[in-house]
C-alpha cells in the first residue's frame, strides 16, 4: 500500500526534477523510484490488510500482480529513448511522471475492494494513457490514435459505471466483499432483473479494456498510432491490470452468478482467439501484428476466467509475466529497427525493414527471435509454460472445446511469429550495426535471459505465485 503513496510522491517530484536534470539522469532516478516502490510492495508480503476505510486490500495475489506491473514499468522506462526530436523541447520529466502516475492507477486496479477504487484506478491509468498516446503532437497517426483511444476509453467507462450502478441498486453496497456475500446468500431468482444486466455491463466494460473481440476494434489502430514506447506500456501494463481486475471481479464476486456469464465469456474467448490470430496472419506491419497478438493473448487469458481454483491465479500470473517479458523485448527491438529505418524506407515498422538484421546485429536478432519464440509458445521459453499451465488448468475443469480451439490457434500463431524470425535470419537485407545505449542493452538481455530461465525452470517462479 505504501507503494502507491510513494509512487505518487515520486511522480510529483519527477516533475520538479525536470527543471534541473537532463533526460538520462531522470531516467535513472525513475528506475530507482520503481525499485524502491517494488521493495515497498514486497514489504506487505503475507500481511493481508485493508487500507483506506477497507477500500483497498493487499493480498499476496495483488502484490504479485503489482510487482509484474512495476517490473513492466521498469523495463519500459529502461527502454525509453529520446521522446521526439530533441530533449530540449519535449520535457522528458513529464513523460516519466505520467508513467509513474499510471502505474499507481494500475496498482489500484489490482488490489481494489470497493468499486470507487476500481473506477478511480481505471481512470488514473486511462487518462494518463490518453496523454501518452497523443504525445507525438505533430504526428497525425498519433493524434488519431489518441482520439480513438480517448473516445473508446470514456465510452467504456460509461458502460462500466452503469453496470456498477445497477449492481449497487441490487445489492446496496459498493464493497466487493459485501456484494460477494449478498450474491451468494440470496437466490438469483429473488434478485431484481437489472442485477444481471449490471453484471454483464461490468464484464463488457472490462472486456473492452483487455481488448477481447468483438470489443477489440480500437486496439490495432491505437497500438499502431501511439509512439512505440507507449504501445509497449499499453500492451503490458494496461492489459495486466485490466485482466487482474476482470479476474478478481468475475471469478471472485460474480462466481455465484456463474450461469449468466459463463457462456458469453467462453464465446468471447473463442471469438477473440480466432479474430486475433487470423487477423495477425495478414499484417505487414510488425507493430500491428503485435497488436493483434496482444488481442489473441487476451483470448488465452480469458479461458481461465471461470475458474475458482487457487492454481489458476498462479497460472495467470505466470502467463502475464512471460507475456510481459517477451513483449517488451519485441517492442524494444522494433523501436531500434524502426528508428534506424525511418530515414531509409517508407514504412519502417514493416516486416521488410527487419530483413537481414542478423548479419550485423546478431545480439538484437537473437533477442527478437527468442521473444517471438516465447510469444508463439515454443518449448524452452517462458511462453510455452505460460500456455501449458493455462491449457492444463482449463482442461482439468472439463472445458474441452475452447482448449482444443486455443491449441489450434496457437499453431496459427507460430506462422506469423516465425515470419519475424525468417525476416531477421533468412532474408537478405542491408542493416548496418545499430548503436544500442548501454542501459537499453542491459534491459534487453535481462528480459531475454528471464524468458529463457523461466522456460527452463518454470517452478522457480511458479512456487512463489
Amino acid at each position, binding site marked *: 500500500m505504501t507503494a502507491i503513496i510513494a509512487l505518487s510522491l515520486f511522480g510529483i517530484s519527477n516533475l520538479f526534477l525536470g527543471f534541473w536534470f537532463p533526460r538520462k539522469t531522470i531516467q535513472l532516478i525513475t528506475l530507482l523510484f520503481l525499485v524502491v516502490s517494488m521493495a515497498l510492495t514486497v514489504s506487505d508480503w503475507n500481511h493481508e490488510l485493508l487500507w483506506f476505510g477497507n477500500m483497498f486490500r493487499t493480498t499476496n495475489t495483488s502484490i504479485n500482480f503489482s510487482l509484474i506491473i512495476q517490473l513492466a514499468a521498469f523495463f519500459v522506462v529502461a527502454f525509453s529513448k529520446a521522446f521526439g526530436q530533441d530533449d530540449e523541447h519535449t520535457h522528458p520529466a513529464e513523460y516519466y511522471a505520467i508513467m509513474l502516475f499510471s502505474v499507481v492507477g494500475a496498482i489500484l486496479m489490482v488490489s481494489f475492494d470497493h468499486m470507487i477504487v476500481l473506477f478511480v484506478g481505471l481512470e488514473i491509468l486511462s*487518462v494518463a494513457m490518453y496523454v501518452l498516446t497523443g504525445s507525438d503532437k505533430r504526428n*497525425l497517426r498519433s*493524434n488519431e490514435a*489518441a482520439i480513438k483511444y480517448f*473516445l473508446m476509453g470514456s465510452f467504456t467507462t*460509461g458502460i462500466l459505471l452503469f453496470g456498477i450502478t445497477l449492481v*449497487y*441498486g441490487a445489492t446496496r453496497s*459498493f464493497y466487493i466483499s459485501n456484494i460477494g456475500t449478498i450474491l451468494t446468500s440470496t437466490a438469483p431468482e429473488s434478485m431484481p432483473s437489472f442485477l444481471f444486466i449490471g453484471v454483464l455491463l461490468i464484464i463488457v466494460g472490462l472486456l473492452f479494456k483487455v481488448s477481447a473481440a468483438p470489443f477489440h476494434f480500437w486496439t490495432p489502430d491505437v497500438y499502431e498510432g501511439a509512439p512505440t514506447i507507449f504501445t509497449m506500456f499499453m500492451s503490458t501494463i494496461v492489459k495486466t491490470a485490466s485482466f487482474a481486475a476482470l479476474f478478481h471481479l468475475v471469478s471472485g464476486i460474480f462466481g455465484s452468478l456463474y450461469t449468466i456469464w459463463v457462456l458469453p465469456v467462453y464465446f468471447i474467448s473463442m471469438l477473440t482467439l480466432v479474430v486475433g490470430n487470423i487477423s495477425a496472419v495478414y499484417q*505487414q506491419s510488425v507493430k500491428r501484428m503485435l497488436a493483434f497478438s496482444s488481442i489473441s493473448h487476451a483470448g488465452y487469458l480469458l479461458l481461465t476466467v471461470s475458474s475458482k481454483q487457487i492454481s489458476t491465479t498462479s497460472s495467470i500470473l505466470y502467463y502475464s509475466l512471460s507475456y510481459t517479458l517477451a513483449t517488451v523485448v519485441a517492442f524494444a527491438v522494433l523501436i531500434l529497427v524502426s528508428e534506424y529505418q525511418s530515414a531509409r524506407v517508407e514504412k519502417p515498422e514493416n516486416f521488410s525493414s527487419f530483413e537481414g538484421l542478423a548479419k550485423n546485429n546478431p545480439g538484437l536478432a537473437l533477442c527478437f527471435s527468442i521473444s517471438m519464440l516465447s510469444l508463439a509458445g515454443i518449448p524452452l521459453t517462458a511462453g510455452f509454460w505460460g500456455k501449458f499451465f493455462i491449457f492444463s488448468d482449463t482442461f482439468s475443469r472439463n472445458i474441452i472445446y475452447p482448449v482444443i480451439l486455443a491449441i489450434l490457434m496457437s499453431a496459427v500463431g507460430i506462422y506469423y511469429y516465425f515470419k519475424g524470425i525468417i525476416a531477421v535470419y533468412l532474408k537478405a537485407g542491408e542493416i548496418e550495426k545499430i548503436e544500442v545505449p548501454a542501459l537499453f542493452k542491459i534491459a534487453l538481455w535481462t528480459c531475454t535471459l528471464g524468458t529463457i530461465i523461466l522456460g527452463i525452470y518454470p517452478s522457480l517462479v511458479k512456487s512463489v505465485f
Partner: protein
Amino acid sequence: MQSIPEIIRTIPLTNYIMLSSALFCIGILGVLTRRNAIIVFMAIELMLNAVNLLLAAFSSYYSDPSGQIFVFFIMAVAAAEVAVGLAIIVMIYRNIQSIDIGVLNKLKN
C-alpha cells in the same frame, strides 16, 4: 417542508431506472452515430450523467450516502477527462483544421 430524499422517493424507483436507461441509450446512440468529436464527447457526458442520476436515486431510496459520494467521484474524474479530451481535440484541430472523426482514417491498411 419535505426533504429532498423524500421528494425523490415520491416517484417510483422503476421510473428512475427507465429514465436513466433511456438517457444512457441516447448517449450510446450519439457515440455510435455522430461524426463530430465534440458531439461524441457530449454524448459520453450524457452517459455519465445518466449514471449519476441513477446513483442519486438509488442512494435516496436506500438512505445510503455512499451512492452520492460515488457521484462526486464520477464528476471529479469526468472533469479531468474533459480536460484531457478537449486538449486532444484542440491538438487535432491545429493539425487538420477539423474535428470530424471521419477524416481521421490514416490507420487502416
